[in-house]
Protein backbone atom coordinates (compact mmCIF):
# COMPACT_ATOMS: atom_id res chain seq x y z
CA UNK A 1 0.00 0.00 0.00
CA UNK A 2 3.07 2.23 0.05
CA UNK A 3 2.63 2.95 -3.67
CA UNK A 4 -0.83 4.25 -3.10
CA UNK A 5 0.44 6.66 -0.51
CA UNK A 6 3.03 8.27 -2.81
CA UNK A 7 0.48 9.17 -5.47
CA UNK A 8 -1.95 10.21 -2.75
CA UNK A 9 0.65 12.48 -1.16
CA UNK A 10 1.49 14.11 -4.48
CA UNK A 11 -2.21 14.60 -5.22
CA UNK A 12 -2.80 16.18 -1.82
CA UNK A 13 0.20 18.44 -2.30
CA UNK A 14 -1.09 19.54 -5.69
CA UNK A 15 -4.58 20.25 -4.34
CA UNK A 16 -3.18 22.24 -1.44
CA UNK A 17 -1.11 24.21 -3.93
CA UNK A 18 -4.18 24.91 -6.05
CA UNK A 19 -6.20 26.07 -3.04
CA UNK A 20 -3.43 28.31 -1.68
CA UNK A 21 -2.38 29.74 -5.03
CA UNK A 22 -4.33 33.05 -4.77
CA UNK A 23 -2.64 33.64 -1.43
CA UNK A 24 0.78 33.25 -3.01
CA UNK A 25 -0.29 35.41 -5.92
CA UNK A 26 -1.42 38.30 -3.71
CA UNK A 27 1.62 38.04 -1.42
CA UNK A 28 4.12 38.03 -4.25
CA UNK A 29 2.10 40.41 -6.41
CA UNK A 30 2.38 37.92 -9.29
CA UNK A 31 -0.99 38.30 -11.02
CA UNK A 32 0.09 36.37 -14.09
CA UNK A 33 0.34 33.10 -12.22
CA UNK A 34 -3.29 33.40 -11.11
CA UNK A 35 -4.45 33.97 -14.68
CA UNK A 36 -2.38 31.02 -15.85
CA UNK A 37 -3.75 28.74 -13.18
CA UNK A 38 -7.34 29.79 -13.82
CA UNK A 39 -6.85 28.49 -17.34
CA UNK A 40 -5.16 25.34 -16.05
CA UNK A 41 -8.02 24.62 -13.64
CA UNK A 42 -10.62 25.11 -16.37
CA UNK A 43 -8.81 22.80 -18.79
CA UNK A 44 -8.29 20.31 -15.97
CA UNK A 45 -12.07 20.29 -15.62
CA UNK A 46 -12.40 19.55 -19.33
CA UNK A 47 -9.77 16.81 -19.07
CA UNK A 48 -11.52 15.28 -16.05
CA UNK A 49 -14.78 15.14 -18.00
CA UNK A 50 -13.00 13.44 -20.90
CA UNK A 51 -11.48 10.97 -18.47
CA UNK A 52 -14.95 9.88 -17.39
CA UNK A 53 -15.71 8.45 -20.83
CA UNK A 54 -12.13 7.65 -21.91
CA UNK A 55 -10.66 6.25 -18.72
CA UNK A 56 -13.69 4.69 -17.08
CA UNK A 57 -15.98 4.17 -20.05
CA UNK A 58 -13.41 3.14 -22.67
CA UNK A 59 -14.94 5.56 -25.19
CA UNK A 60 -12.08 7.32 -26.97
CA UNK A 61 -13.63 10.62 -27.95
CA UNK A 62 -11.39 12.69 -30.21
CA UNK A 63 -13.88 15.53 -30.39
CA UNK A 64 -14.14 16.66 -26.83
CA UNK A 65 -13.08 20.23 -27.54
CA UNK A 66 -16.42 20.72 -29.31
CA UNK A 67 -18.11 21.09 -25.92
CA UNK A 68 -15.60 23.76 -24.92
CA UNK A 69 -16.77 25.69 -27.96
CA UNK A 70 -20.46 25.00 -27.43
CA UNK A 71 -20.35 26.09 -23.78
CA UNK A 72 -18.32 29.14 -24.76
CA UNK A 73 -20.57 30.12 -27.64
CA UNK A 74 -23.66 29.75 -25.44
CA UNK A 75 -22.20 32.36 -23.09
CA UNK A 76 -20.89 34.57 -25.90
CA UNK A 77 -24.04 34.53 -28.01
CA UNK A 78 -26.36 35.19 -25.06
CA UNK A 79 -24.12 38.05 -23.91
CA UNK A 80 -24.16 39.49 -27.43
CA UNK A 81 -27.95 39.32 -27.48
CA UNK A 82 -28.17 41.23 -24.21
CA UNK A 83 -28.77 38.35 -21.80
CA UNK A 84 -25.93 38.78 -19.34
CA UNK A 85 -27.25 36.77 -16.43
CA UNK A 86 -25.13 33.77 -15.53
CA UNK A 87 -28.26 32.08 -14.20
CA UNK A 88 -29.42 31.88 -17.82
CA UNK A 89 -26.08 31.53 -19.58
CA UNK A 90 -24.69 28.60 -17.62
CA UNK A 91 -27.83 26.40 -17.75
CA UNK A 92 -28.10 27.10 -21.48
CA UNK A 93 -24.42 26.20 -21.96
CA UNK A 94 -24.91 22.93 -20.09
CA UNK A 95 -28.15 22.08 -21.87
CA UNK A 96 -26.68 22.82 -25.30
CA UNK A 97 -23.66 20.61 -24.59
CA UNK A 98 -25.88 17.83 -23.26
CA UNK A 99 -28.07 17.98 -26.35
CA UNK A 100 -25.07 17.91 -28.68
CA UNK A 101 -23.61 14.97 -26.74
CA UNK A 102 -26.94 13.14 -26.92
CA UNK A 103 -27.19 13.49 -30.69
CA UNK A 104 -23.59 12.69 -31.61
CA UNK A 105 -23.37 10.02 -28.91
CA UNK A 106 -26.43 8.22 -30.24
CA UNK A 107 -24.87 8.14 -33.71
CA UNK A 108 -21.22 7.56 -32.73
CA UNK A 109 -21.86 4.72 -30.32
CA UNK A 110 -22.94 2.56 -33.24
CA UNK A 111 -19.25 2.31 -34.09
CA UNK A 112 -16.30 1.23 -31.98
CA UNK A 113 -12.52 1.38 -31.79
CA UNK A 114 -10.72 3.58 -34.26
CA UNK A 115 -13.99 4.27 -36.04
CA UNK A 116 -15.36 5.81 -32.84
CA UNK A 117 -12.28 8.01 -32.52
CA UNK A 118 -12.77 9.19 -36.07
CA UNK A 119 -16.53 9.78 -36.00
CA UNK A 120 -16.31 11.89 -32.84
CA UNK A 121 -13.54 13.83 -34.55
CA UNK A 122 -15.80 14.34 -37.57
CA UNK A 123 -18.65 15.71 -35.48
CA UNK A 124 -16.32 18.10 -33.67
CA UNK A 125 -14.99 19.32 -37.00
CA UNK A 126 -18.57 19.92 -38.11
CA UNK A 127 -19.18 22.02 -35.01
CA UNK A 128 -15.96 23.87 -35.82
CA UNK A 129 -17.16 24.72 -39.31
CA UNK A 130 -20.62 25.72 -38.10
CA UNK A 131 -18.99 28.17 -35.69
CA UNK A 132 -16.78 29.50 -38.51
CA UNK A 133 -19.93 30.13 -40.51
CA UNK A 134 -21.69 32.15 -37.79
CA UNK A 135 -21.13 35.50 -39.49
CA UNK A 136 -23.39 37.30 -37.02
CA UNK A 137 -21.18 36.10 -34.18
CA UNK A 138 -17.78 36.85 -35.63
CA UNK A 139 -17.33 33.81 -37.88
CA UNK A 140 -13.68 32.78 -38.15
CA UNK A 141 -12.47 35.73 -36.09
CA UNK A 142 -14.42 34.73 -33.00
CA UNK A 143 -16.66 36.60 -30.65
CA UNK A 144 -15.57 38.97 -27.91
CA UNK A 145 -17.47 38.60 -24.64
CA UNK A 146 -17.63 42.20 -23.43
CA UNK A 147 -19.20 41.44 -20.09
CA UNK A 148 -18.62 38.37 -17.98
CA UNK A 149 -21.59 36.33 -16.75
CA UNK A 150 -23.53 38.27 -14.13
CA UNK A 151 -24.53 36.35 -11.03
CA UNK A 152 -26.40 39.36 -9.55
CA UNK A 153 -23.99 40.02 -6.71
CA UNK A 154 -23.64 36.42 -5.60
CA UNK A 155 -20.17 36.14 -7.08
CA UNK A 156 -18.21 38.60 -9.19
CA UNK A 157 -16.54 36.90 -12.15
CA UNK A 158 -14.46 39.98 -12.93
CA UNK A 159 -12.66 39.57 -9.63
CA UNK A 160 -9.67 37.34 -10.36
CA UNK A 161 -9.60 35.58 -7.01
CA UNK A 162 -13.35 34.98 -6.87
CA UNK A 163 -13.33 33.68 -10.42
CA UNK A 164 -10.40 31.39 -9.69
CA UNK A 165 -12.16 29.90 -6.68
CA UNK A 166 -15.33 29.46 -8.70
CA UNK A 167 -13.38 27.47 -11.30
CA UNK A 168 -11.63 25.44 -8.62
CA UNK A 169 -14.95 24.73 -6.91
CA UNK A 170 -16.41 23.57 -10.22
CA UNK A 171 -13.39 21.31 -10.79
CA UNK A 172 -13.60 19.75 -7.35
CA UNK A 173 -17.38 19.43 -7.65
CA UNK A 174 -17.04 17.63 -10.97
CA UNK A 175 -14.38 15.31 -9.59
CA UNK A 176 -16.59 14.54 -6.61
CA UNK A 177 -19.42 13.79 -9.01
CA UNK A 178 -17.18 11.53 -11.10
CA UNK A 179 -16.08 9.72 -7.96
CA UNK A 180 -19.70 9.13 -6.98
CA UNK A 181 -20.60 8.03 -10.52
CA UNK A 182 -17.65 5.66 -10.82
CA UNK A 183 -18.50 3.95 -7.55
CA UNK A 184 -22.22 3.75 -8.20
CA UNK A 185 -23.98 0.82 -9.79
CA UNK A 186 -24.24 2.86 -12.99
CA UNK A 187 -20.49 3.52 -12.97
CA UNK A 188 -19.68 -0.12 -12.37
CA UNK A 189 -21.81 -1.12 -15.34
CA UNK A 190 -20.04 1.43 -17.54
CA UNK A 191 -16.65 0.13 -16.41
CA UNK A 192 -17.84 -3.41 -16.98
CA UNK A 193 -18.74 -2.42 -20.53
CA UNK A 194 -15.23 -1.12 -21.03
CA UNK A 195 -13.71 -4.47 -20.09
CA UNK A 196 -16.17 -6.72 -21.87
CA UNK A 197 -19.15 -5.35 -23.67
CA UNK A 198 -20.43 -8.71 -24.94
CA UNK A 199 -20.43 -10.26 -21.52
CA UNK A 200 -22.26 -7.32 -19.98
CA UNK A 201 -24.83 -7.49 -22.73
CA UNK A 202 -25.24 -11.19 -22.16
CA UNK A 203 -25.94 -10.52 -18.50
CA UNK A 204 -28.74 -8.30 -19.72
CA UNK A 205 -27.51 -4.72 -19.52
CA UNK A 206 -28.55 -2.43 -22.38
CA UNK A 207 -24.96 -1.49 -23.26
CA UNK A 208 -25.54 1.45 -25.57
CA UNK A 209 -27.98 3.15 -23.23
CA UNK A 210 -25.53 3.11 -20.34
CA UNK A 211 -22.71 4.34 -22.54
CA UNK A 212 -24.87 7.09 -24.01
CA UNK A 213 -25.86 8.42 -20.58
CA UNK A 214 -22.20 8.42 -19.55
CA UNK A 215 -21.27 10.20 -22.79
CA UNK A 216 -23.91 12.89 -22.18
CA UNK A 217 -22.79 13.45 -18.57
CA UNK A 218 -19.22 13.88 -19.73
CA UNK A 219 -20.21 16.31 -22.49
CA UNK A 220 -22.28 18.38 -20.09
CA UNK A 221 -19.36 18.66 -17.69
CA UNK A 222 -17.10 19.79 -20.50
CA UNK A 223 -19.71 22.36 -21.52
CA UNK A 224 -19.33 23.87 -18.05
CA UNK A 225 -15.60 24.16 -18.69
CA UNK A 226 -16.40 25.87 -22.00
CA UNK A 227 -18.64 28.45 -20.31
CA UNK A 228 -15.92 29.16 -17.75
CA UNK A 229 -13.24 29.36 -20.44
CA UNK A 230 -15.20 31.98 -22.41
CA UNK A 231 -15.50 34.02 -19.21
CA UNK A 232 -11.80 33.60 -18.53
CA UNK A 233 -10.58 34.76 -21.94
CA UNK A 234 -13.51 37.18 -22.57
CA UNK A 235 -13.46 35.65 -26.01
CA UNK A 236 -14.65 32.59 -27.87
CA UNK A 237 -13.63 31.50 -31.36
CA UNK A 238 -13.90 28.40 -33.53
CA UNK A 239 -10.23 27.72 -32.71
CA UNK A 240 -11.18 26.31 -29.27
CA UNK A 241 -12.95 23.47 -31.10
CA UNK A 242 -10.14 22.69 -33.54
CA UNK A 243 -9.05 19.05 -33.50
CA UNK A 244 -5.65 19.83 -32.03
CA UNK A 245 -7.44 21.16 -28.95
CA UNK A 246 -9.20 17.82 -28.59
CA UNK A 247 -5.74 16.29 -28.95
CA UNK A 248 -4.45 18.52 -26.14
CA UNK A 249 -7.23 17.29 -23.86
CA UNK A 250 -6.45 13.66 -24.70
CA UNK A 251 -2.77 14.28 -24.00
CA UNK A 252 -3.61 15.73 -20.59
CA UNK A 253 -5.69 12.69 -19.67
CA UNK A 254 -3.13 10.15 -20.85
CA UNK A 255 -0.22 12.11 -19.40
CA UNK A 256 -1.84 12.28 -15.99
CA UNK A 257 -3.11 8.73 -15.98
CA UNK A 258 -6.29 7.45 -17.59
CA UNK A 259 -8.97 6.10 -15.32
CA UNK A 260 -7.60 7.70 -12.17
CA UNK A 261 -9.62 10.33 -10.35
CA UNK A 262 -6.99 13.07 -10.11
CA UNK A 263 -4.80 11.96 -13.03
CA UNK A 264 -6.34 14.37 -15.57
CA UNK A 265 -5.88 17.30 -13.17
CA UNK A 266 -2.25 16.32 -12.72
CA UNK A 267 -1.92 15.93 -16.48
CA UNK A 268 -3.40 19.36 -17.17
CA UNK A 269 -1.19 21.04 -14.57
CA UNK A 270 1.99 19.37 -15.81
CA UNK A 271 1.21 19.74 -19.53
CA UNK A 272 0.28 23.42 -19.36
CA UNK A 273 3.05 24.34 -16.91
CA UNK A 274 5.56 22.52 -19.08
CA UNK A 275 4.29 24.39 -22.12
CA UNK A 276 4.59 27.69 -20.21
CA UNK A 277 8.01 26.84 -18.80
CA UNK A 278 9.48 25.64 -22.10
CA UNK A 279 8.09 28.62 -23.99
CA UNK A 280 9.92 30.90 -21.59
CA UNK A 281 13.23 29.12 -22.19
CA UNK A 282 12.95 28.95 -25.92
CA UNK A 283 10.63 30.11 -28.63
CA UNK A 284 10.86 26.61 -30.06
CA UNK A 285 9.34 24.89 -27.03
CA UNK A 286 7.44 22.34 -29.08
CA UNK A 287 10.78 20.97 -30.28
CA UNK A 288 11.27 19.60 -26.77
CA UNK A 289 7.62 18.99 -25.93
CA UNK A 290 7.00 16.71 -28.91
CA UNK A 291 9.76 14.16 -28.27
CA UNK A 292 8.95 14.39 -24.56
CA UNK A 293 5.42 13.16 -25.26
CA UNK A 294 6.88 10.32 -27.32
CA UNK A 295 9.19 9.35 -24.46
CA UNK A 296 6.30 9.49 -21.98
CA UNK A 297 4.33 7.08 -24.15
CA UNK A 298 7.30 4.75 -24.62
CA UNK A 299 8.51 4.63 -21.05
CA UNK A 300 5.82 6.08 -18.78
CA UNK A 301 2.98 3.59 -18.93
CA UNK A 302 -0.10 4.66 -17.01
CA UNK A 303 0.90 8.33 -17.07
CA UNK A 304 2.13 10.27 -14.07
CA UNK A 305 -0.17 8.39 -11.70
CA UNK A 306 1.16 5.09 -12.99
CA UNK A 307 4.77 6.19 -12.58
CA UNK A 308 4.07 7.50 -9.07
CA UNK A 309 2.50 4.19 -8.19
CA UNK A 310 5.58 2.30 -9.40
CA UNK A 311 7.95 4.68 -7.61
CA UNK A 312 6.03 4.06 -4.39
CA UNK A 313 6.29 0.32 -4.81
CA UNK A 314 10.02 0.72 -5.46
Amino acid sequence: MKGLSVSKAVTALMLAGLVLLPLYSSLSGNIFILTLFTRIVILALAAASLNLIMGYGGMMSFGHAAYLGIGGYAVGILAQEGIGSGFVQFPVALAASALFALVIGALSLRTRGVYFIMITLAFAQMAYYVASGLARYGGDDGLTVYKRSDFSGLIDLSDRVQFYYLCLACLLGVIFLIWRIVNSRFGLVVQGLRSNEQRMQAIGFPAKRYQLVCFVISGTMCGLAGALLANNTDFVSPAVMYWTRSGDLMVMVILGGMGTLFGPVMGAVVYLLLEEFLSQITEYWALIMGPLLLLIVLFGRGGIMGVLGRVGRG
Partner: protein
Amino acid sequence: MLLVVEQFLNGLQFGLLLFLLAAGLTLVFGIMDLVNLAHGSLYMMGAYFAATFAAWTGSFILGALMALGATLVLGIVLEVTALRHLYGRDHLDHVLATFGLILFFNEAVRLIWGPAGLALPLPAWLTVPVPILPGIHYPAYRLAIIVVALLVALLLYLGVMRTRIGMLIRAGASNREMIGALGINIKLLYTLVFGLGAALAGLAGLMQAPILTVQIGMGENILILAFVIIVIGGIGSIRGAFLAAIFVGMIDTLGRAFLPNLLRQVLSSTAASTAAPALSSMLIYLLMAIVLVVRPEGLFPANRR
Protein backbone atom coordinates in the same frame (compact mmCIF):
# COMPACT_ATOMS: atom_id res chain seq x y z
CA MET B 1 -20.08 23.76 -69.34
CA LEU B 2 -16.49 24.95 -69.21
CA LEU B 3 -16.75 25.50 -65.49
CA VAL B 4 -18.33 22.13 -64.88
CA VAL B 5 -15.61 20.24 -66.76
CA GLU B 6 -12.91 22.26 -65.07
CA GLN B 7 -14.29 21.76 -61.59
CA PHE B 8 -14.83 18.09 -62.31
CA LEU B 9 -11.16 17.72 -63.23
CA ASN B 10 -10.14 19.75 -60.18
CA GLY B 11 -12.15 17.38 -58.05
CA LEU B 12 -10.51 14.37 -59.67
CA GLN B 13 -7.07 15.89 -59.19
CA PHE B 14 -7.70 16.70 -55.53
CA GLY B 15 -9.18 13.26 -54.97
CA LEU B 16 -6.15 11.53 -56.48
CA LEU B 17 -3.84 13.62 -54.34
CA LEU B 18 -5.82 12.63 -51.28
CA PHE B 19 -5.50 9.03 -52.39
CA LEU B 20 -1.69 9.21 -52.33
CA LEU B 21 -1.88 10.41 -48.74
CA ALA B 22 -4.61 7.99 -47.72
CA ALA B 23 -2.90 4.98 -49.36
CA GLY B 24 0.14 5.31 -47.11
CA LEU B 25 -2.04 5.88 -44.10
CA THR B 26 -4.27 2.90 -44.79
CA LEU B 27 -1.28 0.61 -45.45
CA VAL B 28 0.34 1.57 -42.16
CA PHE B 29 -2.99 1.38 -40.38
CA GLY B 30 -4.09 -1.87 -41.94
CA ILE B 31 -0.79 -3.71 -41.72
CA MET B 32 0.97 -2.38 -38.64
CA ASP B 33 -2.25 -1.35 -36.88
CA LEU B 34 -0.60 1.99 -36.21
CA VAL B 35 -2.57 5.24 -36.05
CA ASN B 36 -0.08 7.72 -37.46
CA LEU B 37 -1.18 11.31 -36.95
CA ALA B 38 2.28 12.41 -38.09
CA HIS B 39 1.50 11.27 -41.63
CA GLY B 40 0.49 14.86 -42.38
CA SER B 41 3.91 16.00 -41.22
CA LEU B 42 5.54 13.75 -43.82
CA TYR B 43 3.33 15.39 -46.42
CA MET B 44 4.55 18.78 -45.20
CA MET B 45 8.17 17.65 -45.21
CA GLY B 46 7.77 16.45 -48.81
CA ALA B 47 6.68 19.94 -49.82
CA TYR B 48 9.47 21.66 -47.89
CA PHE B 49 12.11 19.28 -49.24
CA ALA B 50 10.88 19.84 -52.79
CA ALA B 51 10.89 23.62 -52.45
CA THR B 52 14.41 23.55 -51.01
CA PHE B 53 15.93 21.06 -53.43
CA ALA B 54 14.27 22.71 -56.43
CA ALA B 55 15.74 26.07 -55.45
CA TRP B 56 19.08 24.34 -54.90
CA THR B 57 19.33 22.45 -58.15
CA GLY B 58 17.32 24.88 -60.25
CA SER B 59 15.29 22.01 -61.65
CA PHE B 60 11.74 21.17 -60.60
CA ILE B 61 11.95 17.52 -61.61
CA LEU B 62 15.31 16.96 -59.97
CA GLY B 63 14.12 18.70 -56.81
CA ALA B 64 10.98 16.57 -56.76
CA LEU B 65 12.95 13.33 -57.16
CA MET B 66 15.36 14.30 -54.39
CA ALA B 67 12.47 15.26 -52.13
CA LEU B 68 10.87 11.89 -52.78
CA GLY B 69 14.05 10.12 -51.72
CA ALA B 70 14.40 12.37 -48.70
CA THR B 71 10.91 11.64 -47.39
CA LEU B 72 11.49 7.92 -47.95
CA VAL B 73 14.65 8.11 -45.84
CA LEU B 74 12.92 10.29 -43.24
CA GLY B 75 10.07 7.79 -42.99
CA ILE B 76 12.49 4.90 -42.50
CA VAL B 77 14.46 6.80 -39.86
CA LEU B 78 11.23 7.71 -38.07
CA GLU B 79 10.07 4.11 -38.09
CA VAL B 80 13.34 2.69 -36.84
CA THR B 81 13.93 5.25 -34.10
CA ALA B 82 10.44 5.83 -32.75
CA LEU B 83 7.36 4.26 -34.27
CA ARG B 84 8.66 0.69 -34.33
CA HIS B 85 8.38 0.64 -30.55
CA LEU B 86 4.69 1.50 -30.71
CA TYR B 87 3.49 -1.57 -32.63
CA GLY B 88 1.14 -3.66 -30.58
CA ARG B 89 0.45 -0.84 -28.18
CA ASP B 90 -2.90 0.78 -27.56
CA HIS B 91 -4.26 3.10 -30.26
CA LEU B 92 -4.36 5.88 -27.72
CA ASP B 93 -0.61 5.59 -27.23
CA HIS B 94 -0.20 5.99 -30.98
CA VAL B 95 -2.37 9.10 -30.95
CA LEU B 96 -0.39 10.66 -28.12
CA ALA B 97 3.05 9.77 -29.48
CA THR B 98 2.39 10.86 -33.03
CA PHE B 99 0.68 14.01 -31.76
CA GLY B 100 4.03 14.75 -30.12
CA LEU B 101 5.74 14.13 -33.46
CA ILE B 102 3.46 16.70 -35.13
CA LEU B 103 4.52 19.28 -32.56
CA PHE B 104 8.13 18.35 -33.19
CA PHE B 105 7.96 18.55 -36.98
CA ASN B 106 6.07 21.85 -37.04
CA GLU B 107 8.59 23.40 -34.71
CA ALA B 108 11.59 21.91 -36.51
CA VAL B 109 10.30 23.39 -39.77
CA ARG B 110 9.85 26.76 -38.08
CA LEU B 111 13.41 26.55 -36.82
CA ILE B 112 14.97 25.50 -40.13
CA TRP B 113 12.89 27.32 -42.74
CA GLY B 114 11.39 30.13 -40.65
CA PRO B 115 7.74 30.93 -40.00
CA ALA B 116 7.04 32.38 -43.45
CA GLY B 117 5.85 30.02 -46.17
CA LEU B 118 7.89 28.99 -49.20
CA ALA B 119 6.91 28.98 -52.84
CA LEU B 120 7.74 26.25 -55.31
CA PRO B 121 7.72 27.83 -58.78
CA LEU B 122 6.80 25.64 -61.73
CA PRO B 123 8.95 25.31 -64.85
CA ALA B 124 7.52 27.14 -67.84
CA TRP B 125 6.54 23.99 -69.74
CA LEU B 126 4.17 22.96 -66.97
CA THR B 127 2.28 26.23 -66.74
CA VAL B 128 0.78 26.27 -70.24
CA PRO B 129 -2.91 25.45 -70.63
CA VAL B 130 -3.51 22.25 -72.57
CA PRO B 131 -6.57 21.78 -74.78
CA ILE B 132 -8.43 18.72 -73.51
CA LEU B 133 -11.71 19.14 -75.39
CA PRO B 134 -12.46 21.49 -78.29
CA GLY B 135 -12.50 24.95 -76.72
CA ILE B 136 -11.66 23.76 -73.23
CA HIS B 137 -8.19 24.26 -71.81
CA TYR B 138 -6.83 22.88 -68.57
CA PRO B 139 -3.54 23.74 -66.79
CA ALA B 140 -0.82 21.29 -67.78
CA TYR B 141 0.43 20.93 -64.22
CA ARG B 142 -2.92 19.81 -62.82
CA LEU B 143 -3.20 17.37 -65.70
CA ALA B 144 0.28 16.10 -64.83
CA ILE B 145 -0.81 15.52 -61.24
CA ILE B 146 -3.74 13.43 -62.44
CA VAL B 147 -1.49 11.35 -64.72
CA VAL B 148 1.23 10.81 -62.11
CA ALA B 149 -1.24 9.94 -59.37
CA LEU B 150 -3.09 7.49 -61.59
CA LEU B 151 0.22 5.87 -62.55
CA VAL B 152 1.24 5.57 -58.91
CA ALA B 153 -2.16 4.11 -58.03
CA LEU B 154 -1.74 1.53 -60.80
CA LEU B 155 1.81 0.68 -59.73
CA LEU B 156 0.65 0.37 -56.14
CA TYR B 157 -2.15 -1.94 -57.15
CA LEU B 158 0.16 -4.10 -59.26
CA GLY B 159 2.82 -3.99 -56.57
CA VAL B 160 0.50 -5.12 -53.81
CA MET B 161 -1.50 -7.64 -55.83
CA ARG B 162 1.04 -9.08 -58.25
CA THR B 163 4.52 -9.05 -56.70
CA ARG B 164 6.16 -11.18 -54.06
CA ILE B 165 6.69 -8.21 -51.75
CA GLY B 166 3.04 -7.28 -52.18
CA MET B 167 2.04 -10.80 -51.29
CA LEU B 168 4.13 -10.62 -48.14
CA ILE B 169 2.56 -7.27 -47.26
CA ARG B 170 -0.92 -8.72 -47.64
CA ALA B 171 0.05 -11.76 -45.66
CA GLY B 172 1.49 -9.57 -42.92
CA ALA B 173 -1.79 -7.68 -42.77
CA SER B 174 -3.87 -10.79 -42.18
CA ASN B 175 -1.60 -12.61 -39.73
CA ARG B 176 1.68 -11.20 -38.53
CA GLU B 177 2.67 -14.08 -36.26
CA MET B 178 2.17 -16.63 -39.01
CA ILE B 179 4.26 -14.81 -41.56
CA GLY B 180 6.97 -14.28 -38.96
CA ALA B 181 6.93 -17.99 -38.18
CA LEU B 182 7.38 -18.74 -41.88
CA GLY B 183 10.75 -17.01 -41.72
CA ILE B 184 9.91 -13.66 -43.20
CA ASN B 185 11.77 -10.71 -41.70
CA ILE B 186 8.65 -8.92 -40.51
CA LYS B 187 10.55 -5.97 -39.02
CA LEU B 188 12.19 -5.19 -42.32
CA LEU B 189 8.86 -5.55 -44.08
CA TYR B 190 7.21 -3.08 -41.72
CA THR B 191 10.04 -0.58 -42.17
CA LEU B 192 9.67 -0.93 -45.90
CA VAL B 193 5.92 -0.38 -45.79
CA PHE B 194 6.30 2.65 -43.57
CA GLY B 195 8.95 4.13 -45.86
CA LEU B 196 6.67 3.53 -48.84
CA GLY B 197 3.80 5.29 -47.07
CA ALA B 198 6.07 8.20 -46.18
CA ALA B 199 7.23 8.53 -49.78
CA LEU B 200 3.62 8.54 -50.99
CA ALA B 201 2.77 11.28 -48.49
CA GLY B 202 5.85 13.20 -49.60
CA LEU B 203 4.81 12.80 -53.24
CA ALA B 204 1.36 14.22 -52.43
CA GLY B 205 2.95 17.13 -50.57
CA LEU B 206 5.44 18.03 -53.25
CA MET B 207 2.84 17.84 -56.00
CA GLN B 208 0.43 20.03 -54.06
CA ALA B 209 3.20 22.52 -53.21
CA PRO B 210 3.14 24.59 -56.44
CA ILE B 211 -0.63 24.99 -56.17
CA LEU B 212 -0.73 26.08 -52.53
CA THR B 213 1.94 27.78 -50.47
CA VAL B 214 4.34 25.56 -48.60
CA GLN B 215 3.65 26.38 -44.98
CA ILE B 216 3.71 25.05 -41.44
CA GLY B 217 0.62 23.10 -40.49
CA MET B 218 -0.29 22.41 -44.13
CA GLY B 219 -0.40 18.70 -43.33
CA GLU B 220 -2.93 18.88 -40.54
CA ASN B 221 -6.11 19.79 -42.38
CA ILE B 222 -5.37 17.36 -45.15
CA LEU B 223 -4.45 14.62 -42.67
CA ILE B 224 -7.95 14.77 -41.23
CA LEU B 225 -9.34 14.47 -44.74
CA ALA B 226 -7.13 11.43 -45.33
CA PHE B 227 -8.42 9.85 -42.13
CA VAL B 228 -11.98 10.53 -43.22
CA ILE B 229 -11.18 8.78 -46.49
CA ILE B 230 -9.74 5.64 -44.97
CA VAL B 231 -12.62 5.45 -42.53
CA ILE B 232 -15.17 5.82 -45.33
CA GLY B 233 -13.28 3.38 -47.51
CA GLY B 234 -12.71 0.85 -44.75
CA ILE B 235 -9.44 0.73 -42.87
CA GLY B 236 -6.70 -1.24 -44.60
CA SER B 237 -8.39 -1.36 -47.98
CA ILE B 238 -6.47 0.32 -50.78
CA ARG B 239 -9.34 -0.06 -53.20
CA GLY B 240 -11.70 1.51 -50.65
CA ALA B 241 -9.25 4.35 -50.10
CA PHE B 242 -9.05 4.97 -53.84
CA LEU B 243 -12.79 5.18 -54.36
CA ALA B 244 -13.42 7.16 -51.19
CA ALA B 245 -10.61 9.60 -52.03
CA ILE B 246 -12.06 10.38 -55.47
CA PHE B 247 -15.51 10.68 -53.93
CA VAL B 248 -14.32 13.04 -51.19
CA GLY B 249 -12.21 15.10 -53.60
CA MET B 250 -15.19 15.54 -55.90
CA ILE B 251 -17.62 16.42 -53.15
CA ASP B 252 -15.26 18.92 -51.59
CA THR B 253 -14.35 20.65 -54.86
CA LEU B 254 -17.79 20.62 -56.43
CA GLY B 255 -19.37 21.69 -53.14
CA ARG B 256 -17.07 24.67 -52.88
CA ALA B 257 -17.64 25.61 -56.51
CA PHE B 258 -21.39 25.23 -56.83
CA LEU B 259 -22.90 25.35 -53.36
CA PRO B 260 -22.85 29.18 -53.09
CA ASN B 261 -24.92 29.50 -56.26
CA LEU B 262 -27.30 26.75 -55.23
CA LEU B 263 -27.82 28.34 -51.82
CA ARG B 264 -28.36 31.73 -53.39
CA GLN B 265 -31.52 30.41 -54.98
CA VAL B 266 -33.09 29.67 -51.61
CA LEU B 267 -31.37 32.16 -49.30
CA SER B 268 -30.53 35.83 -49.52
CA SER B 269 -27.18 36.33 -51.23
CA THR B 270 -25.34 37.53 -48.10
CA ALA B 271 -26.64 34.61 -46.05
CA ALA B 272 -25.66 32.24 -48.84
CA SER B 273 -22.14 33.59 -49.20
CA THR B 274 -21.49 33.23 -45.46
CA ALA B 275 -23.15 29.84 -45.06
CA ALA B 276 -21.72 28.20 -48.18
CA PRO B 277 -18.04 27.87 -47.18
CA ALA B 278 -18.96 26.40 -43.79
CA LEU B 279 -21.49 24.08 -45.35
CA SER B 280 -19.13 22.85 -48.06
CA SER B 281 -16.41 22.17 -45.47
CA MET B 282 -18.95 20.23 -43.46
CA LEU B 283 -20.17 18.09 -46.36
CA ILE B 284 -17.32 15.59 -46.09
CA TYR B 285 -17.75 15.09 -42.37
CA LEU B 286 -21.45 14.73 -42.89
CA LEU B 287 -20.76 12.09 -45.51
CA MET B 288 -18.45 10.24 -43.14
CA ALA B 289 -20.96 10.37 -40.32
CA ILE B 290 -23.66 8.96 -42.59
CA VAL B 291 -21.38 6.19 -43.88
CA LEU B 292 -20.35 5.21 -40.37
CA VAL B 293 -23.90 5.19 -39.08
CA VAL B 294 -25.09 3.04 -41.96
CA ARG B 295 -21.96 0.88 -42.32
CA PRO B 296 -19.90 1.09 -39.14
CA GLU B 297 -16.93 -0.71 -40.79
CA GLY B 298 -16.67 1.59 -43.81
CA LEU B 299 -17.76 0.91 -47.37
CA PHE B 300 -15.10 -1.66 -48.24
CA PRO B 301 -13.97 -3.55 -45.14
CA ALA B 302 -10.39 -4.76 -45.50
CA ASN B 303 -11.12 -8.47 -45.39
CA ARG B 304 -12.76 -8.21 -48.79
CA ARG B 305 -9.67 -6.63 -50.28
